[in-house]
Each structure stands twice: as structure tokens, then as C-alpha cells.
């Protein structure tokens, strides 16, 4: 009697996991386009207040004739859909910037540590470990307390919480790549270390880095939203997803959609990104 079948790996992968990639990829593209080009897609100005149309339900009309509100308005009569789009733009830009920063920093450190090994490796990894001794959330909170809020600071804080994972992953890849023949050959020929890293090792790690980047992306969106929720995010007037959820808390029984919709959106975006990252990871493990 066969054990529960692991199935035919080849076929299952083709159908199911590529489907995962396709769906998440398409959704991700949609989300990115709609938020990055928020000014085009947003039906209203996210800051425009309609004081006589506050807390109107989704699918209602504005009383002053400015049109339709798909997702309702908040306590100052601002259109939620528009704020979601602009907020998304901010969240995504912040996270992308932070991921790029963390990725660049982490990858470089990981590569150096992995390639040169020895003392350099030990010191760099010790640094990583030291940072890991404080849970990310706490580190972020303390840094914001000290640096203050504001877009640049938040990006820095996010990046600081992310570089370690990049460094680790890159380092282990480099360790295995280092022993490969083409690297040995290059070294034998006297090619300087940096050049080897740049021309031979780096290109082989694109997939790994991309996977890690996607994972970090969703983590950072979540962390940024959490900080915004706690009131430690970007300034108050700019719409952010975390901030919108926090604002909506007071209206939870009269206008529950204020908190619920942004939360759903965050969850959806993270889900899509995680799916995508999952697919990338599957692909890279072949």
C-alpha cells in the first residue's frame, strides 16, 4: 500500500504552484499600479473635507454634488477610497525604499561576511546577533521615540529591522557558491575579491535576494502599519493605512467600515505578497 502520495512532483508543481505565482503576480501588479498612480485613480482629493457628509456609508452620494463615494467617508467627510489609494502609495513607497535600503546593506554585508570568512565574518555576524537580541517591534518603537517620526526616519527604522535577514540569507548562499569551480578558477587567475563577488557570485543570488525582498516587503508594510496604529508613524494629516485603522477605532459601532476596510486591504496586500514570495521560494528550491 502506498504511503499518502507525495504525488508526481513535476506535474503538481506545474499546475498548482505556477497558478499561485500567476494569480499573486497579477494581483500584485494591479495593486502596485493603482496605488502608485493614485492621483489618476483616486476619485476624490484625499484631504478634501465634506463637513456635511461625514461618516456616510459606502455607495452613497455626496450632498454637495461632488459625486459618488464608493467606500464611504471618514469623520471629516474625506473619501475613504481615495485615502486608501494615497495611503497605499505611501505605504508601498516606504516599504520599497526600506527594502531597498535593507537589501543593499544586508546583501553587501552578507556577501563580505560569506566571502572573506574568518574574523570579518565573525564580527559581522556577531553584530547581527546583537541586534537580534532585541525584538524588532521594540527596536522600532525605541528608534522612533528617539529619532522622532517623519517619513525619512520611519524608512530608516524599517530598514534597520530588515537588514539582518538579508545578510544571513546572502551569506549562506555565498558560502556555498564560494566553493564552486568557477569561483575557484577566478581566484586562481588572480581576480580581486570584489570583482569576483560582483561578476560571479552576485548574479547567482538574484533569485534569493528577490525572494527575501518580497518577504521583507510584507513584513515592513505590517510593521509600518503597526507603528502608524500606535501613533508613531508619519505625520497625522497624511493618510496611512495604520493611521486610518486607528482613527476609525472610535467609530467602531457607528461606522465600522472605517477600521475594517483598511485592515482588509492591508491583509490582502500582505497575503498577495506572501503568496508571491512563496512562489518565488518554491521556484528557487528546484
Amino acid at each position: 500500500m502506498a504511503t499518502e502520495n507525495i504525488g508526481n512532483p513535476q506535474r503538481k508543481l506545474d499546475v498548482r504552484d505556477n497558478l499561485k505565482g500567476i494569480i499573486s503576480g497579477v494581483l500584485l501588479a494591479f495593486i502596485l499600479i493603482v496605488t502608485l498612480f493614485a492621483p489618476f485613480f483616486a476619485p476624490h482629493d484625499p484631504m478634501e473635507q465634506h463637513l456635511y457628509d461625514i461618516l456616510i456609508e459606502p455607495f452613497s452620494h455626496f450632498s454637495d454634488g461632488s459625486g459618488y463615494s464608493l467606500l464611504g467617508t471618514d469623520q471629516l467627510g474625506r473619501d475613504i477610497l481615495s485615502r486608501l489609494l494615497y495611503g497605499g502609495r505611501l505605504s508601498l513607497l516606504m516599504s520599497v525604499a526600506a527594502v531597498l535600503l535593507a537589501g543593499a546593506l544586508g546583501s553587501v554585508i552578507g556577501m563580505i561576511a560569506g566571502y572573506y570568512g574568518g574574523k570579518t565574518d565573525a564580527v559581522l555576524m556577531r553584530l547581527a546577533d546583537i541586534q537580534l537580541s532585541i525584538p524588532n517591534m521594540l527596536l522600532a518603537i525605541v528608534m522612533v521615540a528617539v529619532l522622532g517620526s517623519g517619513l525619512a526616519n520611519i524608512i530608516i527604522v524599517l530598514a534597520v529591522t530588515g537588514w539582518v535577514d538579508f545578510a544571513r540569507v546572502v551569506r549562506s548562499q555565498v558560502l556555498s557558491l564560494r566553493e564552486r569551480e568557477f569561483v575557484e578558477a577566478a581566484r586562481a587567475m588572480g581576480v580581486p575579491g570584489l570583482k569576483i563577488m560582483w561578476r560571479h557570485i552576485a548574479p547567482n543570488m538574484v533569485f534569493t535576494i528577490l525572494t527575501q525582498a518580497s518577504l521583507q516587503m510584507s513584513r515592513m508594510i505590517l510593521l509600518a502599519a503597526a507603528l502608524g496604529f500606535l501613533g508613531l508613524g508619519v505625520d497625522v494629516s497624511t493618510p496611512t493605512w495604520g493611521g486610518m485603522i486607528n482613527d476609525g477605532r472610535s467609530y467602531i459601532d457607528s461606522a465600522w467600515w472605517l477600521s475594517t476596510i483598511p485592515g482588509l486591504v492591508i491583509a490582502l496586500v500582505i497575503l498577495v505578497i506572501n503568496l508571491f514570495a512563496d512562489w518565488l521560494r518554491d521556484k528557487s528550491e528546484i
Partner: protein
Amino acid sequence: MRQYLFKRFLQSLLAVLGAVTIVFFIIRISGDPARLMLPPEASEEQVQNLRESLGLNDPLYMQYLHYLADLVRGDFGKSLYFKDSALELVLERMPATLELALWAIAIAVVAGVLAGIISTYKRNSLADYLINAGIFVAQSLPVFWVGIVLILIFAVELKWFPTSGNVGWKSIVLPAVALAFYPIAPIARTLRSSLIDVMNQSYMLTSRAQGFSLMKSIWKRGLKNAFLPVITVISMEFGVMIAGAVVTEAVFSWPGVGQLIVQAVNNRDFPLVQACVLVVSVLYILLNFVTDMIYLWLDPRIKVK
């Protein structure tokens, strides 16, 4: 073995030192620590006095040593807002956060183990697929949002539970459930993959061939090995949870360390912030250490690096 134990202990100590150092530098980067440690209305003279006593005019390495000496003595400074020993304030709140984390991890373990077992048993069926999708989604939901939705449904609409605070046993249900969502996924997944591994082991096949059913075989031989990685994951997630409780406590006004940290940060109460971060970090490191020990205890066969 003893060598390994000692080495790990040293590593943990180093990690604690690391946390302490990070906090030390962060506070000093932001400007004048003496200013930070005093209430805003403190006079210039008071600031100067504190600078002297903190040794801020000494070279940096000396300051560092003084700082360490103070910490070892348990002197974390006085909370600016509450005017009490910062360390005591944190320790006072610790049990509430631990209680929350413990219940949350308990819920997560029960749910995760169930999910893991069902999805293993009914591998590749609809149930498996749904469960996998379910836990994947659960992991993507922001915990503060889950908290708000739970409040909306169970406290506001159905009125089964209170919306906040720590009044009686009902208060812990919603926050614990909210906090439990995230770790269910890693627990279930780890259990599933390790059960699958175990089921394919040779001694399992032997046992099956001898006529024992699948469940019994797992029970007799495989369980310990199957659970090993899970226990590690549980322990790890517990540590992460302590810190993640920050947001949950904010949503539910749960009087734990997380809420204290947010209050402290909002009040610019740096001695308290410092105390909170250090205590939580030490706990976190301790948990990692304990995780390793558990791992070792359950399977001494594991080769030490």
C-alpha cells in the same frame, strides 16, 4: 555537552550585553541623555548635576562601564512620569503580559497542532487545502486589526466579552485569541512537515509492517521526533509574542508591559523605555536559551557544531 551548554550560556550573556549596548547608544545618540532623563521643567542646574552623576563628562568607555555597573545593581533609574523605580514598574506589569502570551501560545498550540494533524492525515484533500489557505491568511492579518474586528463582533455586537482591561477571566479571551492568530501557521506547518518526515522513516515502515495502524505508530515511535521541531518553533514564537503583545495590549487596554512601553514612549519617559526594552530583551534571550536547552534535552543525539 557541558561545553556546549557553557558556550550557549556565554552567547546568551553576550546577547544581553548586546541589547544593553544598543540601548546605551541609542539613548546617547539622541542628544543629551541627562536632559532626557529629567522632566522637561528641570532647571539647568539639575541637568548639570545629573550630567555629573551620570558621568557624562567622562570619556565614553568610562560612561559605558558606569552604566553597566548601575544596571547590575538593578538601578535603571526612576520613571519620569510615575516617579517610581523604572525596574519595579516593568516587573509589576510583567505577569499580565506573560499571562496573555501564555494563553495566546496555548490557543495557538492547540489550534496549530490540530490543523497540522488534520492536514497531515488528510493530505492533499480539500480539508488540507482549506486549512493551509486558512492559516496562510491568518498569518497575513495584522494583529491589531484582528483585535478590532474581534471587539466589534464579540464585545460590541454580541456582548459576550468585555472590550478592554483586566476584569475577571473573560477579559483575556479576546486579546489572547487575537495574539494567537499569527503563530498558528508556523506551528501547524512545522508539525505537518515533521510528521510527514517521521512517517517516511524506516522505523515507521517497520512498525506499519508489523501491523500497527498509522496513528499508533506515530504515537509509539514517531511522536517525540515529530514534536521536536514543533517545540522549538513554539518556544521561538513565544518569545516573538512577548514583543508582539505591544500592539495587542494597545488595542485592548491590557495592562501589561506592551502598554507600558507605548505610554513611556509617548511620555518621553526614557528611563522607563530603557527598563522595558532591557527586561523584555533579557526575557527574549532567556527564551531562546531555553529553546536550545529543550531541543538538546529531547534529542541528545543532535551533533553539536
